[in-house]
């Protein structure tokens, strides 16, 4: 107790020096925590976005992830509905699985007959009601961006396309896509092969679905959604076409994706791809209640697959395997966080070390005096280490308080930013709530560094020769 009292009073004795050390500690702690909160916000925002789009886990043909982009429909899951039913009905998964829903990916060519343009697209088909439920998941309480459009309530032939697709198909005006200038064509340009393809697709569409395919231009002219035609190869290799109403153009995070994105309803896509054959899905999307439950759910899914679909070579992939960009981004921010922590740690190390070294020099005679009075070397060392520990504790606590206050203010400002890979601006949040390990780790880490900084000056003080210390001027 006397050591603590002495340490506290000695710190107060030279307020300016102690304040400088405390300031460095608090600044370091606040900087680490604020960046940690920012990093956490990025991680959880991205995680939430990926989980809302594709769930935590996907049951796929084991080769779909690596080879499915060539011809996705070749890797469809037969009798997927039975497997989904088995998942939904499973006792062990009750309370763990929030959503289990089929997804179909396929390739095709979308065209706007009126504009004589077409382009390849990557189709994605979902059950609209399930899509809405997927997007309700928010385990980490991330701030909500503007609600993304879902197909729930849309007509059966409704679709959403990327703004890049809308731009190439010259649908910017009816879909109200901003920043979409009209392209200036080369005057002597050779015949656009897209025009011929568009005409072919339109002819096919007129034959395949005459009732559902009125002329695109009249609908748009009447103020309704514009229409496009979508050509795809069936699983058997024959061409098939469907006419779709484009409900909305939505910007996708990456330009490459934005220029091929097409979302439509599962039933319509299955008719397009599988015709009258039994429909398949390229994946079963499984969203769990809590991310930490992924291993448990994945284990159970393997068991269910072995029981319900033993003849199919299916695999269970989690969202990290499916989205390497997420893992890379998190790793990048982890590296930056470690760098920031190391930088702050070095600043704290030298600031506290310098403060303690100066203190030892100034108090040399006192050290000699207490040693003469019978304080052991370890007692002297303890005195200075306790001073470092006090600095560390108070500085870290001040840093935590400052970080929480700053985060509260920043979060209340309502700032937004556009993260990489996102098509929508997101609220800028410094996420410190629920970050117990980050806060405790930062505080304890800086506390430990402050103690370590004091250790060497304390050791030096303890090794002073008493008579030399007493003679010190």
């Amino acid at each position: 107790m006397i050591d603590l009292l002495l340490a506290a009073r000695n710190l107060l004795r030279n307020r300016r020096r102690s304040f400088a050390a405390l300031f460095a500690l608090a600044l370091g702690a606040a900087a680490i925590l604020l960046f940690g909160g920012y990093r956490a916000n990025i991680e959880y925002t991205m995680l939430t976005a990926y989980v809302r789009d594709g769930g935590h886990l996907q049951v796929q043909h084991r080769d779909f992830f690596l080879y499915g982009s060539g011809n996705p429909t070749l890797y469809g899951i037969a009798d997927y509905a039975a497997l989904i039913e088995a998942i939904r009905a499973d006792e062990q998964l009750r309370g763990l699985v929030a959503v289990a829903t089929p997804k179909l990916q396929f390739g095709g060519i979308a065209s706007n007959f009126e504009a004589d343009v077409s382009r390849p697209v990557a189709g994605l088909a979902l059950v609209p009601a399930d899509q809405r439920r997927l997007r309700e998941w928010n385990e980490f309480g991330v701030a909500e961006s503007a609600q993304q459009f879902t197909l729930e309530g849309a007509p059966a032939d409704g679709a959403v396309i990327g703004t890049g697709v809308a731009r190439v198909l010259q649908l910017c005006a009816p879909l109200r896509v901003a920043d979409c200038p009209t392209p200036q064509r080369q005057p002597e340009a050779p015949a656009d092969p897209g025009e011929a393809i568009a005409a072919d697709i339109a002819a096919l569409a007129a034959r395949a679905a005459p009732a559902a395919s009125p002329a695109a231009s009249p609908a748009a002219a009447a103020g309704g959604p514009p229409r496009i035609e979508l050509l795809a190869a069936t699983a058997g290799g024959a061409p098939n076409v469907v006419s779709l109403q484009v409900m909305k153009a939505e910007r996708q995070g990456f330009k490459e994706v934005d220029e091929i994105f097409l979302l439509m309803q599962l039933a319509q896509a299955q008719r397009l791809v599988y015709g009258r054959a039994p429909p398949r899905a390229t994946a079963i999307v499984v969203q769990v209640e809590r991310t930490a439950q992924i291993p448990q759910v994945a284990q159970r899914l393997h068991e269910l697959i072995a029981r319900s679909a033993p003849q199919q070579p299916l695999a269970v992939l989690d969202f990290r395997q499916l989205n390497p960009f997420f893992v890379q981004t998190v790793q990048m921010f982890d590296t930056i966080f470690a760098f920031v922590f190391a930088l702050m740690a070095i600043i704290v190390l030298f600031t506290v070390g310098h403060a303690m070294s100066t203190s030892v020099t100034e108090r040399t005679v006192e050290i000699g005096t207490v040693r003469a009075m019978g304080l052991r070397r370890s007692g002297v060392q303890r005195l200075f280490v306790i001073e470092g520990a006090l600095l560390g504790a108070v500085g870290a606590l001040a840093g935590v308080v400052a970080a929480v206050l700053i985060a509260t203010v920043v979060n209340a400002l309502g700032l937004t930013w556009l993260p990489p890979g996102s098509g929508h601006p997101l609220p800028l949040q410094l996420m410190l709530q629920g970050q117990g390990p980050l806060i405790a780790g930062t505080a304890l880490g800086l506390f430990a560094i402050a103690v370590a900084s004091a250790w060497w000056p304390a050791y030096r003080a303890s090794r002073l020769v008493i008579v030399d210390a007493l003679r010190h001027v």
Partner: protein
Amino acid sequence: MTASTEPVALLSGVSKSYRLDDVRVPVLDGIDLLVRPGQFTVLLGPSGSGKTTLLNLIGCIDRPDAGQVVVAGQDVGPLSDDLLADFRARHIGFIFQNFNLLPVLSAYENIEYPMLLAGLGARTRGERAARLLRAVGLAEHGAKLPGQLSGGQRQRVAIARALGLRPRLVIADEPTANLDSRTGEAILALMRDMQRRWQISFLFSSHDRNVIRAADDTIKLRDGAIQGIRRRDPAPAAEAAAEAADTLPGEGRP
């Protein structure tokens, strides 16, 4: 209380030198000395004669190059650094020329601090510190920091601090050198009073004539060797021991 007749310090063939760059400078050379218990002993000698070094060796804050130092019946040579620190805490008090009070502790806390180091209970510490404050005439100043006290008051606190653990020996290096003559005399009188009351051995180094006049034993040093020792009859100290019993009921010492 029975006054011990055991020498408070006994030095045999003690030598000490310091290294100055590449040169070894001898400070003490073959010192043989007996410091009597319960006496007021003064080391005399010009600057550089080895007074402070001798005090340091007897105070167990330095070690000789050669020879044996026995303090309070203990050969301190074989003691480890930690055991020597414990030994100092139990048996030796220090009064410094510059008072050397801990500036962040009040007068009361400064007196209490060595008792804390020795692990005395709170009640004992409190009683002793209060009694010592009264004894040195600072009962009203216990809460003051050293910076709020005059030089004389600080030295009184230092004396009280040195006596808190009832040491066998108090080492005082030029205790009046930084005080004006009147305060110096008062401090000297206080120390003499304490020494007589509680039969504590005081060992000084000093140039102060008042100190020298008050000494029971006087040891003259020159060039690291003892030039002469004058010893006075110890009878008055024995009388003072009887007074101490009345002053401090139940304890013979502070």
